[in-house]
């Protein structure tokens, strides 16, 4: 573009810029409060909850979607066979009144509630459940979560109109918890039989406390209360229908706009509050709700088949060189916990191994010395001409990934390990793991059942991290085959110990889900997988 030849306007421009920014920034810095609550404390029905989320998965079928931002709304339109208590991890009745599990944990029989209807008027029967469990595996890669829960299923049989039996080829203790997830939320038979694409764009028919009223892609998901709903989870405090009349989920990608909208009362709740947004929300009429995601914590998933990483001393040195507390304090939202096991503390059968994961740079250095790695000229260790250099692949699906990894890079450099960071597209996640072409991968997995250890680290399954066959395998297989809770907990504890002590992977930090909720909104809590359930939520 043409610039003015005179130099004076340029000076003027600078001055004007300074004046304008100065004035506007002052206007921005004074505090402000949201709407006040009357605080009577008694729950009441009615009202609309407006919830701003950061993204839209482009699909409104809970069986096909894995993204939290979209699940927050879709969870409300389907019921599951069971529910999971977030405090104890225990599985409780929902659409199923009770269930029997065979001693070898291969067969699961569910006794369904009577009188449950879907929003299309059809009734819940054993056949409907069968239709769902038969259809899900056919969704394939469109529904990786749901399909994974049902992998190895042999047959689903209708025993009588309200009894359904699911049989697996192998022992499969995780399946009970899987029936509590949104991924295996039960849809009506007519809904299940529609094409996957159609379910994605038009939505599904569930028996949940809310129904889908409108979906505008990238803009909003609107739900309406189902009157005469009477088959809620055993965990819910309110019996019958929900308190709220309407739920509106607006897609607001910009974090600053979400924060400001909550502060100024344009929305009642927001997802994904980052550390940077916290201070703006403090003092406003807002509560910050946070819960660690159960499952595998964020970790450096080491490729145990690489020459450098075959040596347990090198893996352990990495484990001890990482200062988890420093990473938490510098990068993650307030309240985030450093990893104290490969499992997050909210996972059932989690064991505190914090002592084994304490930062100890001196120990890391002596381990590397023992392994024959000598410090070279640039501070990076070498052995027989090889540099102790590793590539960490990571995916830009969370804003905290890069700063966390850069800090790890510095911490490892301090003991003589060189880390090269390699960003990849999220679309390469599956192919990266499959190809095995990585030294380490940064990631986590959300799952409220310890069986996630088996899917991640058993050498009998995909074994993406190339662990060697070891006693760990039999522990993982046995925990999947036991129906005795105490025995299973012991096996899982031993498995966690083996993974951490052998440093097959390096646990770093728990992922914390953090929401901002206006103070006038009550009882908006997390369920066992750190997602939300809005049946009991009310505004007052």
């Amino acid at each position, binding site marked *: 573009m043409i610039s003015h030849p005179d130099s004076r306007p340029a000076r003027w421009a600078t001055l004007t810029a300074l004046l304008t920014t100065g004035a506007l920034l002052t206007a921005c810095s004074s505090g402000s409060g949201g709407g006040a609550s009357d605080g009577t404390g008694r729950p009441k029905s009615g009202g609309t909850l407006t919830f701003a989320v950061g993204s839209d998965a482009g699909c409104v079928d809970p069986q096909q979607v894995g993204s939290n931002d979209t699940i927050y709304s879709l969870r409300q339109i389907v019921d599951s066979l069971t529910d999971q208590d977030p405090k104890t991890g225990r599985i409780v009745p929902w659409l199923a009144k009770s269930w029997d599990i065979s001693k070898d944990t291969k067969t699961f029989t569910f006794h369904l509630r009577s009188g449950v209807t879907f929003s299309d008027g059809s009734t819940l029967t054993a056949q409907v459940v069968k239709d769902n469990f038969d259809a899900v595996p056919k969704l394939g890669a469109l529904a990786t979560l749901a399909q994974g*829960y049902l992998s190895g299923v042999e047959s689903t049989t209708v025993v009588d109109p309200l009894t359904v039996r699911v049989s697996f080829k192998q022992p499969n203790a995780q399946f009970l918890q899987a029936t509590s997830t949104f991924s295996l939320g039960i849809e009506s038979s007519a809904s299940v039989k529609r094409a996957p694409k159609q379910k994605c*764009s038009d939505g599904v028919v569930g028996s949940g406390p809310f129904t889908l009223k409108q979906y505008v892609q990238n803009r909003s998901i609107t739900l309406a209360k189902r009157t005469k709903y009477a088959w809620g989870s055993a965990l819910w405090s309110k019996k019958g229908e929900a308190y709220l009349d309407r739920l509106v989920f607006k897609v607001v990608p910009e974090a600053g706009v979400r924060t400001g909208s909550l502060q100024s009362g344009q929305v009642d709740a927001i997802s994904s509050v980052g550390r940077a947004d916290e201070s703006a929300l403090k003092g406003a009429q807002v509560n910050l709700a946070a819960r660690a995601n159960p499952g595998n914590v964020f970790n450096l998933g080491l490729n145990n088949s690489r020459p450098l990483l075959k040596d347990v001393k090198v893996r352990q040195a990495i484990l001890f060189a990482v200062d988890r507390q420093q990473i938490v304090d510098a990068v993650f939202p307030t309240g985030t916990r450093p990893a104290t096991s490969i499992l997050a503390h909210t996972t059932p059968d989690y064991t505190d191994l914090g002592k084994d994961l304490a930062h100890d740079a001196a120990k890391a250095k002596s381990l590397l010395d023992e392994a024959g790695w000598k410090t070279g000229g640039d501070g990076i260790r070498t052995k027989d001409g090889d540099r102790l250099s590793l590539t960490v692949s990571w995916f830009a699906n969370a804003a905290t990934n890069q700063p966390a990894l850069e800090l790890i890079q510095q911490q490892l450099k301090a003991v003589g390990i060189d880390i090269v960071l390699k960003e*990849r597209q*999220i679309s390469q996640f599956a*192919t990266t793991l499959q190809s095995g072409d990585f030294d380490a991968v940064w990631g986590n997995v959300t799952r409220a059942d310890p069986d996630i250890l088996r899917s991640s680290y058993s050498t009998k399954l995909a074994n993406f991290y190339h662990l060697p066959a070891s006693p760990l395998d039999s522990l993982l297989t046995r925990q999947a085959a036991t129906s005795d809770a105490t025995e299973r907990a012991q096996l899982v504890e031993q498995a966690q110990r083996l993974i951490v002590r052998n440093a097959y992977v390096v646990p770093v930090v728990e992922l914390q889900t953090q929401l901002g909720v206006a103070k006038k909104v009550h009882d908006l809590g997390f369920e066992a997988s750190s997602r939300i359930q809005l049946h009991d939520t009310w505004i007052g």
Partner: protein
Amino acid sequence: MRRYVVKRVAQAVGVLWAAYTVSFLVLILLPGDPVSAMAGAGAEAGTVDPAQLARLRHEYGFDKPVLAQYADHLGRAVRGDFGDAISTGRPVTSTLGDALPQTLTLTGTALLLAVVLGGGLAVLATYTSRRWLRQLLLSLPPLGVSVPTFWVGLLLVEVFSFRLRWFPAFGNDGPRGLVLPALTLAIPTGAQIAQVLAKSLLTALDQAYVETARAKGAGRLRIHLRHALRNASLPALTVVGLLAGQLIAGSVVVETVFSRDGLGRVTVAAVTAQDIPLVQGVVVFGALIFVLANLIVDLVYPLLDPRIVVASGRKGSFA
């Protein structure tokens, strides 16, 4: 005139084809494919069955040779069929059809605002005889051009939505929701119009025909608006044509900041998911809008200055 129009239309088609081909090449060269992207986004449990992926790849035709895929896609695109978006399963044309009006409303309003604000500023700055006022006004366009769009947007939201609560911070609901995003887009655009128009107005006012008009006794305002502005608006019009494309590009940022539904948001989603059919649709639509805007500008030129067609006809080219 007819040769002039035919040539412009042929050029437009060429641009569309090039846009389609380049976007196809870029997407094919990117590592991964939409099927892996789908699996990657949901692959929390790490349980992706390679056979399933292969089946889906086959279903979408990603296992065919690149040239066959290209010919196949292009053949259907010519007939207006861009296939289904892989991430949502909805037809690309209806996805774009839903988004397009939102973006056209936004960019149209922004362009109008930009012409009014930028044009007004340029006329006022060149008309005023107060030197300080002229300098002040002329210092605004460089400022408007240099501040980043997302920053302007966030500032406007902070002041007019979060503080004063005059306008909603996000959404597509009604004219009130249009004000801040349109203004955000209009500021850099209007600034460019003002820069060009002010410059050419100042040049025009030094021309001999202005002297002639003045000698004939025409008033200052009349000279400024009737004589100088008419001649000065030609370069500004060229800029407006170019700005149409820039506005569409700007809508990516503005629609994200203001959480508006539209082509910009569809673009972001499509690129993130490496949704090849959808990205191709977006690119061709974007190019179409750009091409149409410039075609209109080209066809308006002769109305302002008939010498253009004459020149074009004689030399066979027009730059």
